């Protein structure tokens, strides 16, 4: 009797094939892949027949055709006879310009407002809070249109430009800035600046390492400042090769100087103001996340307020701040595509906007290139940020 029971227990339990987890998993995944392929096949077949009835020739050959329209802001030489490839580059550079500048300015403004929100001064904290709540709860495109139409659009006309020290002129057609002119020897000044920056950085690292080993804190501020005098010396030695070309009103327009188009100004202001509100919240959260006992302990050790902030609070807050900061940067870059709403010639507006309308037939290729570009930008930014994040964590532990 017992023998039979033992025998039964020793045998592996019989499971129907459709209940075997491994069989089920393989079957389900195969089914999923098949469905996906069928779906993709259908889509491609549809696209083919649709394009054939429209008589469209697919492919990226159109990139070499002449674009045939001008762009209001180009960082590299561009004319309407240039190819779509060139146009793409112009747009991409414009996007990178506004995103890069926007990231820097938004970080500065965001940190200032985030810290202001934590200020002991009741009024300052309240005002920073009001800024954050107001800006975060209004759509970005709304804000961009507001800056573009209502603020920049209602500025005085060119002839009645607002002048700032006679060097910068603001009017409803943009902002005109003085343009630096580089003469002979400007290169050596630039080189001196680079050398000085590198030297200061090396000095800082050396002092830090020494402090780690010996515990002695070296004052490097004055030697550092002295080193930064190097480019000034170079400037004097080469006879001040950097000058400025001031804009001048002639007739109805300004001659000389740099003209910043209002679309750029509106997009930059809008992106910076909007993203700064989010960064401010991140900064505030990060600083609040550092437990109070950390700064209390630092005070108990006799550290000053400034030193506590610099050595205890900020390093720990940064660990909390940086990951969401990366996603704010990504959002800013992606949001720069709203340029299409106000007509700044960024990648999206010139390529997916105007070029798409012009070529008409090449919609798939153009949208694919545009989306791939933004995707690549996103992936690169997040990879860089992850790298930085990992470094910061390693230093901490």
């Amino acid at each position, binding site marked *: 009797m017992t023998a039979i029971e033992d025998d039964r227990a020793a045998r592996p339990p019989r499971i129907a094939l459709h209940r075997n987890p491994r069989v089920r998993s393989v079957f389900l*995944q195969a089914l999923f892949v098949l469905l996906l392929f069928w779906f993709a096949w259908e889509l491609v077949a*549809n696209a083919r027949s649709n394009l054939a009835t429209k008589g469209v020739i697919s492919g990226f050959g159109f990139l070499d055709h002449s674009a045939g329209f001008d762009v209001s802001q180009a960082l590299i030489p561009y004319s309407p006879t240039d190819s779509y490839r060139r146009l793409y580059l112009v747009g991409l550079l414009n996007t990178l310009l506004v995103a890069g500048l926007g990231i820097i300015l938004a970080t500065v403004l965001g940190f200032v407002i985030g810290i202001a929100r934590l*200020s002991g001064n009741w009024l300052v904290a309240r005002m920073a809070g009001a800024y954050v709540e107001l800006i975060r709860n*209004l759509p970005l495109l709304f804000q961009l249109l*507001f800056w573009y139409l209502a603020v920049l659009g209602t500025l005085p006309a060119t002839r009645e430009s607002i002048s700032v020290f006679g060097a910068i002129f603001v009017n409803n057609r943009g902002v005109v800035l003085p343009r630096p002119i580089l003469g002979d020897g400007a290169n050596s000044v630039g080189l001196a600046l680079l050398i000085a920056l590198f030297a200061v950085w090396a000095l800082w690292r050396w002092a830090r390492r020494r402090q780690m080993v010996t515990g002695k804190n070296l004052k490097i501020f004055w030697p550092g400042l002295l080193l930064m005098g190097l480019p000034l010396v170079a400037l004097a030695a080469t006879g001040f090769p950097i000058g400025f070309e001031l804009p001048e009103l002639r007739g109805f327009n300004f001659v000389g100087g740099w003209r910043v188009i209002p679309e750029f100004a509106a997009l930059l202001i809008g992106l910076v103001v909007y993203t700064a509100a989010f960064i401010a919240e991140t900064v505030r959260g990060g600083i609040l996340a550092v437990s109070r006992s950390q700064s209390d302990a630092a005070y108990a050790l006799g550290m000053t307020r400034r030193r506590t902030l610099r050595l205890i609070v900020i390093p720990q807050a940064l660990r909390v701040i940086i990951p969401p900061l990366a996603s704010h940067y990504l959002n800013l870059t992606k949001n720069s595509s709203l340029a299409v709403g106000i007509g700044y010639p960024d990648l999206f507006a010139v390529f*997916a906007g105007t070029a798409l309308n012009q070529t008409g037939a090449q919609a798939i290729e153009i949208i694919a290139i545009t989306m791939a570009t933004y995707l690549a930008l996103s992936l690169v930014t997040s990879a860089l940020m992850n790298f930085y994040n990992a470094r910061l964590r390693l230093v901490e532990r």
Partner: protein
Amino acid sequence: MSDIATTVFVRPKLLQPLPPPDRLRKRWHIMGNWKDFLLTVLSLYLIWILVWPAFKFLFIDAVWTGSSRSDCLAETVGLPVGACWPFITAKFSQFVYGFYPESERWRADLTFVLGAVLLLPLLIPRAPYKITNAVLFFGVFPVVGYFLLVGGAFGLPYVETRSWGGLLVTLVVAVTGIAASLPLGILLALARRSELPVLRIGAVIFIEFWRGVPLVAVLFFATFILPLFLPPAWEIDGMLRVLVGVSVFAAAYMAEVIRGGLQAVPRAQYEGAMALGLGYWRSTGLVVLPQALRVSIPGIVNIFIGLFKDTTLVLTVAIFDLLGQLRAAFADPNWSSPSTLFTGFAFAGAIYFLFCFGMSRYSLFLEQRLRQDRDR
């Protein structure tokens, strides 16, 4: 000893104890020292140049009645003119309904009311019948709303979506986006946490792709490319294309929020469900998902806020939501006056702000409630 004394961080002398804090008086730190004083003066100056003129413009100098632009011109009024409110009165129905035919507007109103009646008890945590309510709002309401707004059945005349506009479009896009992205997001989040590698990789690629591209690109994709991939017989309408784009985009973000919620469910819950003999679908549906969704509600509300703000982007594919109607109204020569622009922005801004601010406060309230529940 001397070695310690030269180290930077150690104070050689004991501090005198501070007087006990004065807890009765609230400290505002407005005038304490010269730094606070300077900051206060700066803030007051900012208020003086920003807030006061805005207030003066919106209320004190405002024109409240009138019938055309001439009523809002400084020459006719003889005073400095602020906000031109008659402009808003004249364009109000356009801001709310777009060009929805006037005789059929009761249908839009009815949809608004129906939505509000179903949404309100859903938002109150204490109201009963949550599941029925959610099914009604996310499942039944979109269908009813579709037939009400589009018509062409049950004796209602057909209204083409091209004539829709204003706040109606804003709300339709946002609500459809959230209603469609919720089930899609749940499926994606489950797939991303699945044990089947093919499903997992598929979900990761799908989610990261849509999260990596800007919504404008998604809208262009939906408007210009999507029809090319569908059989020519399916002529899908512009609004539907946008809704598909928005839903897919929102689903990717929704999936991440729900994944966070799923991660917050302790492993013991899965194991307990398995020990009770529940299969995958039943343990997910009856044990894990209800807890995960509860935790993700604040995140879902935040997505909704984002979506509500993002609906303005439909403007770029020639669908005129509230912001689009505002822009169109600016172009009306009958109402072009120096103050029209600011008036319009103030009005639309107030609407957007009320919706978004209300929702963000609600999401904060929910987060607090969740925290209380967890701490108990």
